């Protein structure tokens, strides 16, 4: 013991000729940390989010309460889910504006089949199947008919919105939920939606980063022709991504409808889908394809959740939220562009 303790400082000084280690070791460590920080886009948004959290936490004690954290989590959950799906499409250099409407429409599907006498579980499965179909239609129009996805999904958005308006007779309805275990798992439990969201986000992250499908998605977004020349079925990959985002959006919608307990046909999906896209963008996903970060998107979603909630709590007029969101988009994008330039310079 004693010997070891004594020998250590002794051992160190001869072993470490002071100058080289200082230069090589000490200088490079923080420098490489800074490099990783700049190269990993997520780090920026984490820092900003933590800053905003601290700000609101100091402004008001109410921010810290479990009840409020649940509010943030519930607000954030669908943004996480749709945003993670949106990352797949942004990596493909595509976009899905209809995801928010799929989120709103899927529970209506479930409700209609349920009120027609079909058991709740099966009605939900049918609704999810129809969500997949929406995604397939989006993908088919984009890939096989060559219509830009921005336009295709705008078309789907209005089609679905119209469908809900007509079929619902503009009547708000109550969503079945109950107090049983099933209800708690699927939406009603306080943490249900956010846990589902994190699970779905993790699956999409694994899909994008750890599987063959993910490589093919990146390839199709980064070099469409080249990916096709390598024999990747790029059309099929794209259609699958449209189907995945539609499926998860529909699922998130059903969970939220069960949680809230009612549905209003007047809600439009465009409001809902913009937040996830903003989350993806401030999280560090470019719109140019080939790159995307699911993790950054999740943090971006929490950032939006915290911002909205914080403004609410400190009593800032809700309208200011949109103002702030706008400013955040501009600033985040400016930083992202600058960072990617810096990253490119560093790597060269």
């Amino acid at each position: 013991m004693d010997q070891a303790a004594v020998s250590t400082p002794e051992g160190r000084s001869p072993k470490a000729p002071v100058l080289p280690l200082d230069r090589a070791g000490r200088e490079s460590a923080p420098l490489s940390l800074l490099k990783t920080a700049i190269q990993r886009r997520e780090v920026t948004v984490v820092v900003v989010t933590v800053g905003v959290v601290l700000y609101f936490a100091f402004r008001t004690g109410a921010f810290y309460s479990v009840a409020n954290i649940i509010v943030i989590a519930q607000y954030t959950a669908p943004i996480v889910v749709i945003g993670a799906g949106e990352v797949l499409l942004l990596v493909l250099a595509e976009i899905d504006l209809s995801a928010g409407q799929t989120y709103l429409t899927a529970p209506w599907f479930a409700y209609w089949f349920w009120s027609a006498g079909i058991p709740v579980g099966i009605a939900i499965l049918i609704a999810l199947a129809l969500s997949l179909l929406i995604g397939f239609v989006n993908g088919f129009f984009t890939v096989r008919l060559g219509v830009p996805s921005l336009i295709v999904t705008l078309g789907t958005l209005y089609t679905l919105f119209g469908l809900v308006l007509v079929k619902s007779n503009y009547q708000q309805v109550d969503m079945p939920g109950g107090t049983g275990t099933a209800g708690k798992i699927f939406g009603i439990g306080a943490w249900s939606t956010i846990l589902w969201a994190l699970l779905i986000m993790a699956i999409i992250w694994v899909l994008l980063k750890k599987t063959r499908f993910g490589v093919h998605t990146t390839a199709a977004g980064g070099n469409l022709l080249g990916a096709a020349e390598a024999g990747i079925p790029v059309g099929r990959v794209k259609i699958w991504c449209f189907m995945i985002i539609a499926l998860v959006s529909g699922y998130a919608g059903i969970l939220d409808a069960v949680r809230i307990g009612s549905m209003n046909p007047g809600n439009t999906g465009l409001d809902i889908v913009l937040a996830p896209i903003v989350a993806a963008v401030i999280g560090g996903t470019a719109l140019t394809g080939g790159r995307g970060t699911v993790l950054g998107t999740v943090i971006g979603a929490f950032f939006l959740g915290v911002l909205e909630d914080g403004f609410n709590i400190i009593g800032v007029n809700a309208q200011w939220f949109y103002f702030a969101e706008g400013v955040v988009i501009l600033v985040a994008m400016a930083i992202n562009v600058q960072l990617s330039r810096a990253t490119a310079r560093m790597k060269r």
Partner: protein
Amino acid sequence: MTAPQAPGGAVPAGGQGGPEADTAILRAVGITKRFGAVAALRGIDMHLNRGEVLGLVGDNGTGKSTFVKVLCGFHRPDSGQLYLDGKQVNFHSVQDARAHGIEAVYQDLALVPQLPVYQNMFLNREETRLGRLGFLSNRKMRKLAKDYLSNIKVDIPDIDAEVEMLSGGQRQAIAVARATRQNAKILLLDEPLAAMGARESALIIDLVRDLSQRGVSMIVIDHNYTHLFELCDRLNIIQRGRVVFDKLVSTTSVEELTELMVSEYKRQLLAGHSDLESA
């Protein structure tokens, strides 16, 4: 002066024998392909002998790359037949042609800038585990890619570097390495040396020679006659979507090729490209 009317005179030797008694490993008969109003290929007849390196020469836009993309299954020909080892084949996809032992290096390299070197080398041939789920074995791919590159003496400092960060020559080397790694029977190389410096070119030329000695048959497109005479056994010139010249390297010369290309250029100037448009 040296036979500008080569087309008739230089028909491939085994051309009339039919697919039965075919010495060629790959034979194309009357391949046509059009893109809308543009006839890219207007009846290409070509054969590639076993173990041979065949050079394709021709100006830009004469259909060389399109032809290569037909041979590797990327494009389907509008008409004409392909014979592999004397048997007629129809490639429905790149995958299909690969299964028959045909590999291509495309002119545009078909690399994904945002993916690391090793994932590009395994693009659409990813090593995976857990069966059909398709989880990537990145460690295995990294090692295999590294080993192969150092085997063929291609120097890529970082196997994890995104291709975006590499030089043109390095990218080309990766694209070539990706194709040569597959133990293909037939390699199609569309301008494999275009972006390369002298050292890298020498390396790829060595690699091609080595593969050729091991019996791989190859078609090489290049604009540099010096490279072609160094690499190839036989040369074909493609003009206006047809093969118009077919000679062994030993029986032709840079002068003859230059002569032919220039006379075609003059002809086009005089014709004002009219026959290209009206195809």
